C-alpha cells in the first residue's frame, strides 16, 4: 500500500484543489440556496415558475453549455466578469475560483431541491404557535424553522459537495484544465486517460475519488442521524 505515497506533486495538487473547490462551492451556495429554497417553498410571486426553471437549468442543460454560458458572462472581457474584477477584484476565468463557481452552479439545483423539500415539510402551525408566543417572524425563522430544516440543509450541502467533486464538463469548458490552478480530480483523470501509460495514475486518482465520496456520504449520514435524533420526531 505505498501507492498513496507515489502520488506526484501534480496529483496531490489535483486532490487538494478538488477538496478546496468542492468545499468553497458548497459553503458559498448554502446561504443563497436556503434563500431561494425558501422563496420557492413559501413565496407567492409573479415569475416563480421562471425562477424555478432557471434554478433547475444546470440539471437539464449539457454541462458544456453551462460552462460556455459562464465563459461568455464571467470571462475577463465579458461584461459581468470585468465588472466584478474592477469592483470587487474577483477574477473567475481560468482560476480555481471559476472552478468553484462552475461547481456551485451545477450543484445548486440539487441543494435547493433538498432544502425546499425540508422547508415544505415543516408544520406551519408550529410557526404560528411561535408567533402567538410573541416571536417576531424573523425570530420564528431563526429559532423554529431553521433548526427544523437542518437535516435538509445537511443533505443539500452534501449533494452539492458530491456534485462538485465529480463536476467535469462545465469546469473544463469555463476554466480549462490548468495543473495546480483549475485541474480538479476529474480533469486530472481525464488528462491521464489521454496520454499513453497514464492508466496507473488514472486508477490512483479514481480510488482517491471513491474514498473521498464515500467519506462524504458517511459523514452526512452521521450528521443527519444526529440532527434527526435531536429533533426526536416520532
Amino acid at each position, binding site marked *: 500500500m505505498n501507492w498513496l505515497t507515489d502520488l506526484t506533486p501534480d496529483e496531490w495538487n489535483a486532490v487538494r484543489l478538488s477538496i478546496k473547490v468542492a468545499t468553497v462551492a458548497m459553503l458559498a451556495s448554502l446561504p443563497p440556496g436556503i434563500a431561494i429554497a425558501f422563496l420557492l417553498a413559501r413565496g407567492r410571486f409573479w415569475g416563480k415558475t421562471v425562477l424555478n426553471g432557471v434554478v433547475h437549468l444546470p440539471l437539464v442543460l449539457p454541462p458544456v453549455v453551462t460552462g460556455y454560458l459562464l465563459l461568455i458572462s464571467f470571462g475577463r472581457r465579458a461584461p459581468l466578469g470585468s465588472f466584478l474584477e474592477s469592483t470587487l477584484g474577483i477574477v473567475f476565468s481560468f482560476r480555481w475560483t471559476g472552478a468553484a463557481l462552475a461547481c456551485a452552479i451545477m450543484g445548486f439545483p440539487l441543494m435547493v431541491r433538498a432544502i425546499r423539500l425540508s422547508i415544505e415539510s415543516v408544520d406551519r402551525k408550529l410557526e404560528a404557535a411561535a408567533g402567538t408566543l410573541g416571536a417576531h417572524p424573523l425570530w420564528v425563522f431563526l429559532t423554529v424553522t431553521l*433548526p*427544523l430544516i437542518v437535516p435538509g440543509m445537511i443533505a443539500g450541502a452534501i449533494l452539492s459537495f458530491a456534485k462538485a467533486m465529480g463536476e467535469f464538463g462545465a469546469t473544463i469548458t469555463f476554466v480549462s484544465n490548468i495543473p495546480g490552478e483549475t485541474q480538479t480530480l476529474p480533469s486530472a483523470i481525464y488528462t491521464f486517460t489521454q496520454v499513453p501509460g497514464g492508466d496507473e495514475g488514472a486508477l490512483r486518482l479514481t480510488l482517491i475519488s471513491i474514498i473521498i465520496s464515500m467519506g462524504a456520504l458517511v459523514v452526512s449520514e452521521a450528521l443527519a442521524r444526529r440532527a434527526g435524533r435531536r429533533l426526536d420526531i416520532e
Partner: protein
Amino acid sequence: MTVSVDIEQRLGAFGLEADFTSSGRLTALFGPSGSGKSSLISLIAGLTRPGRGRIEVDGRVLVDTEAGVFVPKHKRRIGMVFQEALLFPHMSVAHNLRYGRWFTPPAERYARMEAVVGLLGIGGLLDRRPGKLSGGEKQRVAIGRALLASPRLLLMDEPLASLDDARKAEILPYIERLRDETKIPIVYVSHSVAEVARLASDVVMLSDGKVVAAGPTAEIMQRLDLLPADEKGEGGAVLETAVVRHDEAFGMTVLGSKAGEIRVPRVAMAVGAPVRLRVRARDVMVATVEPTGLSALNVLPGTVAAIDPGEGAAVVVRIDCNGVAVMARITRQSRQALELAVGRPVFAVVKTVSFDPATTAAGPRGEIDG
C-alpha cells in the same frame, strides 16, 4: 376584562358573521364542527384577518378594518393552546416553556416558572423531549408554554379533542385550576356539552358561522333545541351546588342547592367545596304526586315553567325548583297522561347513579347558588 368581537369573514362558500361580547372568566365558543368556532379563535389570535370588523380585548383594539388597524399576532400577547399541542420538537420541555417568556417585556412578565410548573404538575418532565411525552402531558406543557408568555388572554382551541377519555379526565382538573387560580381570562373552543357545562362561566353558541345564543352557562345549556344533534342527550340543567356532607356508609355525597339536597355518588371534594352539577334532561323523570316506594333518591319539588316541543317522541319540560330550572326530557305520551301544563306543581326525580364524574365537577369558586 372584556372580549368584544364583531367580524365578518368569507372563506369560499363558508361565511362567518359573529358579534358578541363576553367578560366571563372562561368563555366557551360552542357549536358543532364546521360552525366557525376555530375560525373565530384564529381571528382573535391574529392568525387570520377578517374581511370586515373589529376585535377588542381588554380595551385594546386589535383589529379594526375601518380604521386600518391590524396588530400582528406576535404583538397581541394572546396565548393560544392548539388542539395538537404543537410543542417545538427540537427543544426540551423546559426550553419550550421558556420560549414565550423570552419575548415578553420584563415589566409585563407576571407568570412565574415554578408556579406554572406546579399548577400543571409538569415538574418531572422538564428535561424530556416533546416526542417522548404522552398526549396529555404534551397538552399540559402546551398550556404551560402559553401561560409563561404572560398573556392578557388565553385561547384554547379544542385542547382535549384529540385525547381519549382517560387523558381528558387527566387534564380537565388542570383547566379548572387555571380558571380558578389565575386571573387570566380564557376563551375556550369546544363542541362537547360535557366540557362546556363543566368549565365555562359564559357560552357563545355558534351555528353555521353565526352566533345563535350567548350568555351565562346555566342559561345557554337549557336551550336543548340549540345543541348539536349528537350532543342533545348531554344537555340539561347546570346547577351550582356545594358539598354538604359525605355519606360514607353508602358511598354518597350530599350536595346542597337552591332546588334542594341532591345525592350523588361520592366525590373527592371537601365539605363546603363548590360543585358544578349537570343534570341531563334525559335522566330526569317527572311525577305529579310525591313518589313513594321508588328507588330514586333525589326528588325535587317545583312547578312546570315551560314545555318546549322536542323532536320526535320527546318534549322538554322546564321545572322551576325554587328559582333553579331543571330540565326533563319525557315522551309526549307521558306529558299527555300526566296532563302537564305550565304552572302545575310537580316533582323532578333523578337517580343518584345517573350522575358520574362527567357531570360532577369542581365548580368555580364564589358562584354558588345554594
